[in-house]
């Protein structure tokens, strides 16, 4: 705000057009940009990238909205293992209903379960993929992601819906439209500029190694399933991601145990409340533990032992639980990067899950 009114000129409305042939310049710019874009597209394809949909909040919202149309749908929630390892075609063929895939990578499914529990009409089956490290995460990115997705869905505007459909048209045609790996920011990240020694950051997230379709049927890319170099790179990323962060406040082992116990109880209590709400409306909830292997499985056993976490979920909620280690037919799968099944194996794994699901249905537990 100027302190003197006399020296303050009102804005000028007259717009000056710089002396250039702007229509010609626009055309040349368009041609050059098109040339650069197609060159970039060919280069990306030469690296092995193919057109795929981006797993965006819009895509998630486009699935979540279907519950409003049919609240008796079967819904899949969880993290990337549910997204990658569950074959919806197999489920539909065997169980007669097409499920909705609402699992998102790196996610605590608690907020999704709560969303369904608080839905006034939802009465379908919820299949919850459990990764204990994420399921019991009290905050941080595993909680932020589902909350962001839910908020996005609640505010999903007509403009965003339209943009989503237009975006899919382009994503199906261009390989370079890949928000996991090929954005300018991701390309800059690949420069791997060293950070300061004292600086602390969130661990690096794994590179693009899965695809989704318009129904969010996920699956590991064939490159990730075969390329051992990429698999090793992803394996090294899991180690810090699955290592519990250091304590913010120094505490003794007994204090730490008490704190973990307290937080675990809170999560269990909340989960039970949500399961009860769903079952009270005629819905069903089943928990599934998908395979993990190698050093990652060892870390899971160390930091989130089954007896303290998985077993307690089942005992507290009284809901059925399927742990891959409890069934011979579900064991022995190889996860190429320790955490997820290849696309082929996900189909096989789901096929082997189906008899168990059918049995649960016969027992009226599903």
């Amino acid at each position, binding site marked *: 705000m100027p302190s003197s009114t006399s020296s303050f000129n009102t804005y000028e409305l007259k717009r000056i057009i710089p002396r250039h042939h*702007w229509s010609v310049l626009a055309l040349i710019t368009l041609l050059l940009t098109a040339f650069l874009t197609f060159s970039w597209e060919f280069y990306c394809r030469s690296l092995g990238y193919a057109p795929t949909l981006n797993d965006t909040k819009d895509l998630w919202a486009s699935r979540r909205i279907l519950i409003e149309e049919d609240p008796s749908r079967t819904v899949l929630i969880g993290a990337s293992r549910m997204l990658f390892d569950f074959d919806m075609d197999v489920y539909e063929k065997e169980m007669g209903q097409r499920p909705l895939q609402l699992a998102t990578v790196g996610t605590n499914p608690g907020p999704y379960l709560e969303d369904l529990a608080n839905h006034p009409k939802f009465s379908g089956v919820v299949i919850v993929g459990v990764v204990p490290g994420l399921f019991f995460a009290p905050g941080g990115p595993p909680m932020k992601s589902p909350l962001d997705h839910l908020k996005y869905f609640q505010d999903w505007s007509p403009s965003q819906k339209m943009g989503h459909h237009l975006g899919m048209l382009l994503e199906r045609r261009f390989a370079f439209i890949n928000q996991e790996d090929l954005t300018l920011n991701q390309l800059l990240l690949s420069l791997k500029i060293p950070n300061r020694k004292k600086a602390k950051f969130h661990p690096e997230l794994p590179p693009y190694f899965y695809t989704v379709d318009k129904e969010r049927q996920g699956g590991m890319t064939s490159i990730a399933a075969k390329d051992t170099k990429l698999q090793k790179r992803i394996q090294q990323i899991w180690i810090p991601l699955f290592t519990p962060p250091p304590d913010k406040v120094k505490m003794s082992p007994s204090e730490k145990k008490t704190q973990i116990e307290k937080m675990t109880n809170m999560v269990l209590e909340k989960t039970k409340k949500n399961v009860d709400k769903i079952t009270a409306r005629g819905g069903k909830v089943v928990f599934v533990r998908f395979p993990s292997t190698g050093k990652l499985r060892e870390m899971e056993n160390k930091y989130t032992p089954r007896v303290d976490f998985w077993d307690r979920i089942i005992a507290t909620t009284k809901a059925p639980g399927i742990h891959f280690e409890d069934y011979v037919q579900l064991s022995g799968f190889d996860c190429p990067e320790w955490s997820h099944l290849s696309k082929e194996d996900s189909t096989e794994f789901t096929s082997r899950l189906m008899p168990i699901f059918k049995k649960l249905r016969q027992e009226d537990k599903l």
Partner: protein
Amino acid sequence: MLFNSLTFVLFFLAIISLHYTIRSWQTQKTILLVASYVFYAALNPPFVILLWISTLVDWYVAKALESEEKDSQRRVLLSVSLFVNLGLLGFFKYGEFLLENFIAALNLLGIEFQAATPNIILPVGISFYTFQTLSYTLDIYFRKSKPCKSFLDFALYVTFFPQLVAGPIVRATDFLPQCEEPRRANKDQFGWGLYFITLGLFQKVVLADGMLSSASDTIFGHSDGSIFVLDAWLGVLAFSAQIFCDFAGYSTCAIGVALCLGFALPDNFRSPYAAIGLSDFWRRWHMTLSTWLRDYLYIPLGGNRRGIFRTLINLMVTMLLGGLWHGASWTFVAWGALHGSYLVGEHLLRQKFGDCGWVKTTLGRFSLGMLTFILVCLGWVFFRAKDFTSASLVMGSLFSFSGDGAQLLPTLEIIQVIIVVIGLLSAHWYLHEKRLEHAMQNFPAWFVVAIWTSMLFGLILMQGGANAFIYFQF
């Protein structure tokens, strides 16, 4: 609808096609009006009703003001417009804030009172179109202009989609005359409009969202202990550049879109980070709001005509309300108060040292420019922080030279922030005394094409999601 969305690309192509294929000017304007409602409804359909209320009230109040001679009746009519417009703004924007403070005040007095959270959704752009329609009615009340004769023109003035949700705030006297004659851009005007749209989108998508937002979010989202001084400064610099690129980006797009349709909108920014002094900053930052506040608040309060003390009070009041216009939070009031204090201080210093020769030297001007920039950056801390705890954490970290504090920014982001901030400051100093149009005119055609292509390809590479503009929340 956001400019940085695929939906807008389709919408824009459709509107341009219709605008240039239909011959009747009345039909063209009707299409633009309907398109503007669609543009607004695409964000949240029910809020279009607020636009209609605002349009109808000010249309009829202005008509009545024109025929009414009695001052008392004219005041009543003006009050109706103020009540409806500011009432809607107050309810939607400040309702929760007022309730929270009312409860806090009661609790402070020892009265236990709790109320359910109303959860009011803020209609996008309400502050902008409220000020725009108010300026129309106020101009007629002060007999500075005549009421518009065409309801279609007036409705289009209130709703014109390029500037509806985040400005520039346009005066009726500037816009309505443009509705009298058919508007068609010639080829060069159209091409220059497209350049503006590209520049605006580049500022928003590549610079603000792509290069700066992460550093700014990291620093202002930190709550766990102090921040290392370098990181704190880089976070504040990142936000300073981000808020400019975001908001100026929107205004630039708006001007470009309007140009393509044959309309002229005013500049909203003119190299503000090269301002020499805070008065100069407000001549260059959000110019259409500054002039609005000057004409409809500062001058009616008495401006600088009632002595030095009253001038300083008027400045302070104007900046406090200007701060509150930006958001229903005490941090925005603090930001306004800080800028008010800056202006008061500058006013007093100018009186004492205004004639000092050193101030007019190149070094003096540059030093004052940098000081202005730093003061503005410090102000942004209150603007960006979600509360005073966060603001004091960042502010404290900015001046903590012990070497302690968390190092939060990756090297890549440090490099990005430094490059963008230096680039931005250099561009502002280069354009300090001249307009972008004049600079572009002096560049050879190949250079213009190179810049334009780089920006467009940068946009394609960035693949930015349709993130809302920061000023939408105001």
